[in-house]
């Protein structure tokens, strides 16, 4: 079984569910109009059809798939310890932290973490760059363009307000 087949099969299941979900959650529409549920149903029906065609194509070519693309435990293990997975996690953590601790602390932490992930070995370079870039972004967007940046909650909000008032 290949990753591509699993990916397509999961999409097929999800979009088939969506097709029935929208029909079940919206009131039926009149014959003289295209209802709120019918346009998504047209799209989803086409989507399911195309996914089935794609899955058939994948199954036909299954024997020619190289071993490294076959789904197995070592491949999954490799993914969860890869730089890519850690990178995705760091970006998700940033998205969560932004609302909690505000722009400035989360930007500094993110820049340090991601630059280390990308191979910057000298921690002081990571730290200096993170602080300088955060300052530039803050001055450029908040002071220069009057674009609001997340302030965070509690003490972080007070800190952000203090910096904004400077």
């Amino acid at each position, binding site marked *: 079984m290949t*990753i*591509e087949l699993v*990916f*397509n099969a999961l*999409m097929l299941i999800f*979009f088939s569910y*969506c097709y029935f*979900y*929208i029909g079940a*959650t*919206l*009131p039926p529409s*009149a*014959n*003289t*109009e*295209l209802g*709120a*549920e019918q*346009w*998504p149903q047209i*799209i*989803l029906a*086409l*989507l399911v059809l*195309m*996914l089935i*065609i*794609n899955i058939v*194509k994948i199954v036909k070519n299954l024997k020619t798939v190289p071993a490294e693309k076959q789904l197995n435990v070592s491949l999954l293990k490799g993914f969860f310890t*890869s730089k*890519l997975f850690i*990178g*995705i996690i760091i*970006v*998700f953590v*940033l*998205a*969560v932290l*932004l609302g909690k601790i505000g722009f400035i602390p989360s*930007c500094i932490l*993110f*820049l340090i973490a*991601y*630059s*280390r*992930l*990308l*191979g*910057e070995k000298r921690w002081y370079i990571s730290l200096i*760059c993170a602080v300088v*870039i955060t300052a530039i*972004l803050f001055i450029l*967007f908040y002071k220069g*363009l*009057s*674009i*609001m*940046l*997340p302030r965070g909650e509690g003490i972080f909000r007070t800190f952000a307000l203090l910096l904004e008032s400077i």
Partner: protein
Amino acid sequence: MLDILISGAQIIFQPLTFLFILCGTCLGVVFGAMPGVSASMAVALALPFAYSMSPVVAIAFLVSVYCAAITGGGVTAILFKIPGTPSNAPTTFDGYPMAQRGEAGKALGVSLVCSAFGGMIAAFAMALISPQLSAVALKFGPSELFAVSFLGLSVLTCLDSGNIVKTIISGLIGLWLSTIGMDPMLGLARFTWGNSTLLGGVEMIPVMIGMFAVTEVLKETTKPRVMNGSDKQTGVKTTFPGVKEFLSIKWVMIRASIIGTIVGILPGAGATIASFLCYTTENKLSKHPEKFGTGCIDGIAASECANNAATGGSMVPLLSLGIPGGNAAAIMMSALVMMGVQVGPLLVRTQPEYLSSVFTSMLVTNILMVVISMLVAKIFAKILAVPYSILGPTIIMLAVIGSYALNNNVGDVMLMTIAGTIGYLFVKQGFSAAALVLGLVLGQMCESNLRRAIKIENGNLLAVFSKPITAVLMTACIIMLVYPVVKPIISRKFGKKANVSAV
């Protein structure tokens, strides 16, 4: 024409007004080059400066910001694969591969020349045929507008002719994403699963930023970037195309400028649709479609000519009818209304200085922005020398600010992150992120116009599609959709015949 130019020059070349236009162009290029600051956002940010100006000068100033922002967006699209404005997204397809090959300067040169060319053609078109074209645009009802947006969708099959099924799946997912949230006609909640955040729908800009910028950084995380050529060492020097190269793309530029202007005139369409439409049209018409997406100047020319031409087009209905052709034009219109100007069909007849000032401002801006963009590109290109361990996270932070600034909502940052992750998986599995974005952009326009058209005709589908303009456009759509599928079959058949006759 000459009298419009003379009266416009009398307004624009007054020292203070010219200074405003110059500042507007600088602001526009810089705002446009900043990821997440769209052209309409740039116009909105420049609005407070316009309040102190007279209405005629204010509209000329705002037009300069608008035109320059669209051009500035091409700079980051080429250098970092981050479209500064949504309409620069197709520029990334060929601009970024050229930058990776060490030809960023050449890509920027083509982009700037084409932007100026498209903008000027549109300015002349606006001044010459403004009332006539706007009268045609007025005849566009919901069914015709559906046909126009479907025409934009029909180009899906050639976004990646290598795998049509996967490209169509990507486009359909984009269309489905556009149905999430409140239904545009009745306000019914769709695919929200009880979550109030989803009621507002899927915002286009965070998805676009995630799909293009975050995905790119994630790709580089696993496989560090290699920038070839001389640009890495010497910085980017904008190189204008030579006469031979210029002649090789002349028809692309002319076609894209004309199509861009026409699309810009249609209310609700705009620069994004224009650039996608022209990019894929040129892909279809090209003798070497396989070169598109690998760093070919035709792709950059099509996209940049079209999006700049659409800026001029969008001013036609605004000036002649008081109908904004897009978001930026709507902001300009609201500024004029706030200043007490009566916008509508009488504006151009009773106060022709508005048309002449906009026309001359566009001409002047399109020349000024080439010089200013070169300087901005130089500054932005210096960033290429920064190690990727610093540049990569900074790109993500710019993407975060761009997504957050849209609604001051952290939820949009999460959406961008999800879009980036899914975008990475998509690209890895051979799906097309560009097709998904196209579906998302055109989805709501397609749906609302089709539903309105069907409602007007009491459910009679034949009446909807048999209107002359709609019928012509839909026929064109079907040809465009089917041609890439049928083309290999035909060529195989003819190839076989040729082989047989040769034997």
